[in-house]
C-alpha cells in the first residue's frame, strides 16, 4: 500500500507521496490513513468547481486535483486579483479544504505553478521557466532522457529550437512547452451547471380551492413531462412549492423508484402525498403561485409502444412500492441485501427499495442441509441462562423470557471469530469469539444460541445469548 495524498502536516513530518504506508508509519506512528477513493475525489472536485461559479462563469475541473478558473474580466468584481485570491482561499478553508492558488497567463501554466511551483511565486513567465521538469508531465522515459541530456528547468528547454526537440522527444513535449510558456493558447472549457427543469405558474388572483390547486399541479407536471421528454430524461424526485399570498410556502416532495415522465403516475403520488400530510394543506387566502421543480432526473429513453395492446397485465410492482413509500416514507419499503462480512448481524441488512440496488448473492445452503441461518435475528442478542454439562460444551437446558427449554437436538459449535480489524486496538484486543449452536427443544422450537467467549482462553465465565429463531 502506498500513499496517494498527504495533509500539509504530514508533509512537514517528512512523509512523501508514493511512500509505502509501512514506511510512513515507521516515521510517524500516529499517522491516520484513509483509503484512497478516486471516484469520491472526482465528485468532490466537481462540486468544488460548481461552487467556483461564484467567482467566474468559466470554470473547468481538471482532474485529479485542479480547478481552472478563467478570471479575465472577473477579478475587478472581487476587488482585484489579490483580494480575489484571499477571498477564495478563505472561502475554501472555511469548508475545510487546503487550496493553493496561482495566477498565470495560460491555464496550463497556472496549473503547473500551483502543482510544482512551491509555496511562493507569482504568475509571470519567469516563474514558469524556473519550474522543474516534472511540470512537463510527460512520460517517464522522456523525463529521464531530458535529465540525462542535462536539462533541469523548463526555461532551458523553452529556449531551444522546437524542431529538434520534437524530432527527439515527440511533438507532445513541444506542445506542452508552448502551452506552459503561453505560445499556444488552450482554452478553458467551462463546466456547465446542469439546467434544472422548473416550471412555475402564477395566478392573477390567488386560488383558494383545493381542486384548483391540484389542477394547476397536474398542468405543471404535464409541462415538466414535455421538457423531460425533450431532454431524454425522466424525473426521480419532484418538488412542488405552493406560495401562499401571505408569504408562506408549502413544500411537497415526491420520489419515484424509477425515472418517469408519466403524468398520471406522478399525479397519483402527489395526491397520496397530500393525503398523508400530518397537517393538511391550508390555502389560507389562496396561493398566488405554484412551481414544480425536478430535483433529480435520470436518463430515460423513449420506449417503443407495440401496436397490439399488450395482453399481460402491468407486471411492474414499482408503482405500488412508490405509492407506499410516499405514504409511509421510504424507510417502510425494504428489501434484503447482503453485506461483505461473516459476523451474522453484519452479513445482511435491510435496504430501501428506492435506493441503489446491489446484488450480492447469499451464501448457498448445502443441498440436503436444513437452514443454517435463522429466519429472525435479534438485535441485540438476548441474554439467557444456560445449563451445560461442561463449560465449553453444548447447552442442555436454558431459560429465555422466563420459560424453561430443554434441548433435545443440537448442532454445533459453529465458531465465528470477531472482526478484530474493525476494532480500535486491532488484534491486541479482538473481542470474544462466538460459538453458535443450532438447538431444538422437545416441542420443535428451533433456536440459534451462542456462547460469547471461549471458555478458559478468552473468559472464565462465558455468557450465553439467543441470537435468532429458526422456522
Amino acid at each position: 500500500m502506498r500513499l496517494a495524498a498527504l495533509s500539509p502536516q504530514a508533509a512537514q513530518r517528512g512523509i512523501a507521496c508514493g511512500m509505502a504506508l509501512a514506511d510512513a508509519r515507521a516515521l510517524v506512528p500516529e499517522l491516520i490513513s484513509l483509503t484512497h477513493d478516486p471516484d469520491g475525489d472526482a465528485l468532490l472536485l466537481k462540486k468544488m468547481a460548481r461552487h467556483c461559479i461564484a467567482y467566474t462563469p468559466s470554470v473547468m475541473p481538471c482532474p485529479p486535483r485542479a480547478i481552472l478558473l478563467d478570471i479575465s474580466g472577473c477579478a475587478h468584481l472581487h476587488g482585484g486579483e489579490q483580494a480575489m485570491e484571499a477571498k477564495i482561499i478563505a472561502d475554501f478553508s472555511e469548508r475545510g479544504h487546503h487550496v493553493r492558488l496561482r495566477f498565470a497567463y495560460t491555464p496550463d501554466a497556472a496549473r503547473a505553478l500551483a502543482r510544482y511551483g512551491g509555496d511562493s511565486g507569482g504568475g509571470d513567465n519567469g516563474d514558469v521557466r524556473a519550474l522543474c521538469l516534472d511540470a512537463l508531465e510527460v512520460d517517464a522515459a522522456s523525463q529521464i532522457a531530458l535529465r540525462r541530456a542535462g536539462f533541469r528547468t523548463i526555461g532551458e528547454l523553452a529556449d531551444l529550437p522546437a524542431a529538434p526537440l520534437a524530432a527527439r522527444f515527440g511533438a507532445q513535449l513541444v506542445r506542452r512547452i508552448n502551452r506552459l510558456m503561453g505560445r499556444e493558447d488552450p482554452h478553458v472549457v467551462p463546466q456547465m451547471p446542469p439546467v434544472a427543469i422548473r416550471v412555475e405558474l402564477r395566478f392573477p388572483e390567488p386560488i383558494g380551492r383545493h381542486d384548483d390547486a391540484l389542477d394547476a399541479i397536474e398542468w405543471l407536471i404535464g409541462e415538466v413531462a414535455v421538457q423531460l421528454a425533450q431532454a431524454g430524461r425522466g424525473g426521480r424526485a419532484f418538488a412542488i412549492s405552493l406560495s401562499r399570498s401571505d408569504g408562506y410556502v408549502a413544500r411537497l416532495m415526491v420520489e419515484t423508484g424509477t425515472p418517469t415522465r408519466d403524468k398520471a403516475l406522478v399525479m397519483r403520488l402527489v395526491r397520496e402525498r397530500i393525503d398523508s400530510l400530518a397537517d393538511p394543506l391550508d390555502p389560507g387566502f389562496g396561493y398566488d403561485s405554484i412551481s414544480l421543480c425536478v430535483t433529480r432526473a435520470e436518463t430515460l429513453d423513449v420506449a417503443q409502444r407495440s401496436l397490439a395492446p399488450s395482453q399481460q397485465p402491468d407486471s411492474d410492482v414499482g408503482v405500488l412500492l412508490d405509492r407506499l413509500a410516499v405514504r409511509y416514507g421510504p424507510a417502510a419499503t425494504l428489501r434484503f441485501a447482503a453485506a461483505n462480512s461473516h459476523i451474522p448481524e453484519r452479513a445482511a441488512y435491510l435496504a430501501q427499495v428506492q435506493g441503489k440496488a446491489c446484488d450480492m448473492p447469499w451464501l448457498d445452503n448445502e443441498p440436503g442441509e436444513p437452514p443454517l441461518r435463522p429466519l429472525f435475528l435479534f438485535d441485540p442478542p438476548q441474554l439467557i441462562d444456560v445449563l451445560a454439562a461442561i463449560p465449553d460444551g453444548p447447552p442442555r437446558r436454558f431459560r429465555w423470557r422466563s420459560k424453561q427449554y430443554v434441548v433435545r437436538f443440537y448442532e454445533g459449535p459453529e465458531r465465528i471469530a470477531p472482526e478484530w480489524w474493525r476494532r480500535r486496538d486491532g488484534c491486541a484486543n479482538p473481542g470474544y469469539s462466538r460459538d453458535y449452536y443450532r438447538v431444538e427443544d422437545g416441542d420443535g422450537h428451533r433456536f440459534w444460541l451462542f456462547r460469547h467467549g471461549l471458555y478458559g482462553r478468552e473468559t472464565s465465565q462465558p455468557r450465553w445469548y439467543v441470537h435468532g429463531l429458526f422456522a
Partner: protein
Amino acid sequence: MADRELNGGLRADGLHEFYARSRQDIVATISFALLIGQLCQRRDGRTLIWAREVQAARNGGNPYGPGLAALGIDTRKLVLLILPDAKAVLRAALDAARDAAVAAVVVELTGRQPQLDLTATRRFALAAAEKDTMVLSTRLAASPTPSAAHSRWQIAAAPSRALDVHAPGAPAFEVELLRQRGGRDGISFIMEWDGDSASFRLGNSAATAPSLSRPRSAMAVGGAGDMRRASAA
C-alpha cells in the same frame, strides 16, 4: 394427502388465515405462510410482499436475509413493508392485494385485531380473487374470529426428524385445518419443508409426495359457491 383434502390445493387467489397455536409458534406460523407465499410466487415470478408492524421486531426480532435464502425464498422477489401500526398494515396489504404485479401478500398481525372483521376480510378475499393474488394473513397471539377467509389453519412448530448426529433437521410444522369453505375441516398433519426441492412433504411418513406444493388457480364451481355463501354470511 393434504392436497387431496383441499380438493387439489390451496386457492391461489384466496384469503387464508394462519393462527399461531402459542406465542412460541409465531416463527413457525410466519415461516409457514411465507413458504406458501413462496410457492405461489414461484408459479409466475411476481413479487411476494410481507407486511408487518414496527413493533413486531421488538418481540420477535428482525427478518434475516440469509435465513430466508436458506429456506429457499427468493429475496430478490420479496419486499418487506415495515409500517407504523396495524391500520397501516391492513391498508398497505389491501393495496398490495389489489395490485396485479403481486403474487402473494403475507400479512403479519399480532393480538386481537378488531379492524380485521368480516367486512375487512371480505374486502381482502374479493381483491385476491379479482387480481389473482394470494393473501396469507398470519394472526399471532389471537383467537379465531369470524372472517371471509377461504381456509383457516392453526400452525405450531413440530419436532423435526433429526439428522444422523442428533442435529435438528428440516423445518417441520404441525398444521391443523380449522375451517375450510366448502370442504372438510378438522384434519391435522405434520409437514416438513424440503428446501432443495422447494416443496412440503408429509413429515410423519417417509413418503415424499408433494403436498400443498402446487397452489391451484381459482376453482370455477367451488369459487361461485363460495361467493354465495359469503354474501349470505
